[in-house]
């Protein structure tokens, strides 16, 4: 799969990463090589094979519907780069 700078710009936007204009061609080349590696699967006889998402063929485990976590909002908010009054602070979203 040939990745061009426009595709890099599009997926970088989806991933919320910024790639400098001067790096777009280099990154496009690197991603092309990685996806060429993935394209080796294209010729493998995989039609009809059930996809395997996980090594365990188990149903999701259930636990009792009981309160286990304590109220540690203060502990978690203390990790935030910016917080005030029990809330996370971010730049204004609505003008």
């Amino acid at each position, binding site marked *: 799969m040939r*990745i061009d700078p426009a*595709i*890099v710009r599009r*997926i*970088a936007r*989806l*991933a*919320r*990463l*910024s790639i400098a204009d001067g790096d777009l061609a280099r*990154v496009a080349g*690197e*991603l092309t*090589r*990685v*996806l060429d*590696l*993935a*394209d*080796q*699967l*294209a010729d*493998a006889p*995989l039609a009809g*094979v*059930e*996809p*395997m*998402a*996980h*090594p*365990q063929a188990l149903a*999701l*485990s259930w*636990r009792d519907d009981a309160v286990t976590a304590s109220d*540690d909002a203060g*502990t*978690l908010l*203390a*990790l*935030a*780069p*910016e917080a005030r009054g029990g809330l*996370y602070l*971010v*730049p204004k*979203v609505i003008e």
Partner: protein
Amino acid sequence: MRAESIAQLAQALRARRISSAELTQQSLAAAHVHSHLNALITLDETGALAAAKRADAALTQAASSALTGIPFVHKDIFCTNGIRTTCASRMLENFVPPYDAHVVGQLNDALAVSIGKANMDEFAMGSSNENSFFGPVKNPWDTARVPGGSSGGSAAAVAAGIVTFATGTDTGGSIRQPAAFCGITGLKPTYGRVSRFGMIAYASSLDCGGVLARSAADCAQVLAAIAGHDARDATSVDRPVDDCVAALSTSLKGIRIGVAREYFGAGVEDGVAAATQAALRELEKLGATLIDISLPNAALAIPAYYVIAPAEASSNLSRYDGVRYGHRCAGPKSLEDLYTRSRSEGFGSEVQRRILVGTYALSAGYYDAYYLRAQRARRVIANDFTEAFASVDLIAGPTAPTVAFKLGEKSGDPLAMYSADVNTVAVNLAGLPAISLPAGFVPNESDNGLPVGLQLIAPAFAEARLLNAAHQLQLATDWHTRTPPP
């Protein structure tokens, strides 16, 4: 340097020939002596000495475990309450978790003494430990070479004799390949055997916590402490843990070892293949039958892995947004700018590359061609193992195709780096347990030679069989007792 086993140290501690405080001070001193290896990101001298004091008190009351008082390091991917946990990323440079990972809690309960946090590839993405925000780790056998990755700091710390064992994680070979490159023993347990709670996520269907140590017997002791069910990880398996320590002494007479021909394919250096074959002949002398086998879909493992792991990573790492914890850019102009600049500044280039590959593979129009196809490949790779284990008890081959390569040799070429995982990633895709153990040396320009690792793979939950075979080989050989130059 210290080269005693966990059992020998435990005995010395119980006989009062040495205290945990003395052992811990020696470990801390060794960490300083070997600081040029850059094996540790954080050294916790105060915490270590306090833990040693508690261990010494427990030893006088006989309220102790096999690991009580023994110094070790955690890979810096395990959350440690109150101790900075960086995952070797600028993103988490100042992250101090408010809780312990399950593995951390288990080793605290055992009163083992953590002296700090080991360097690694950023977010466990790498095979050389050159992707760390805190700089590369050097291989104690030859400091011009890499220790392997991503658990490179853990492996170097054990090989250099700073500690007796280290925790690690293995998503595509990140315990086994550094163990091979550093001449030590590394165990990747079955997926689900060790809780992932508090282990920073890279690719959740592949990530597996484990141990690096000098011998299989030591790995068995540590596995006993960290394995078992934990309700906080939904994929942690509720099933009794086999007594791997007791199983170590079982004879290997009659055990069938499948030698996978694909693991000796193109790219495997002659010296590595020869050392692996010599180790296999030692197993034969111990009563094992070697059987030539094929894993016909082995070549699909690298392509499948480098779709699945990045896809899961792109999802897992979306949590780093500069809002709740982790790096935040200065002066964000908008929420979008906050997300984008915080992530671009916080993540290194390999992490960004994998996020981009994963985002692409999961994006509309490409999901079937990449992610779904990789999942189909995963199924046939896993089926190969199931079919092979119908006629053999273990599968063997070289852990890595080469010995430790030079720093900088592959860091400019992501695909060359990915090929270092050619013999290890299939095990993670299938969720199986595997071990790498020293299997001789390949001569190099220094006098010491460079270590080669033998990989043994077992069916799910057969860690006892794996450790038993590795231990019996280590009773008959001395490769694992060799140490790098001081």
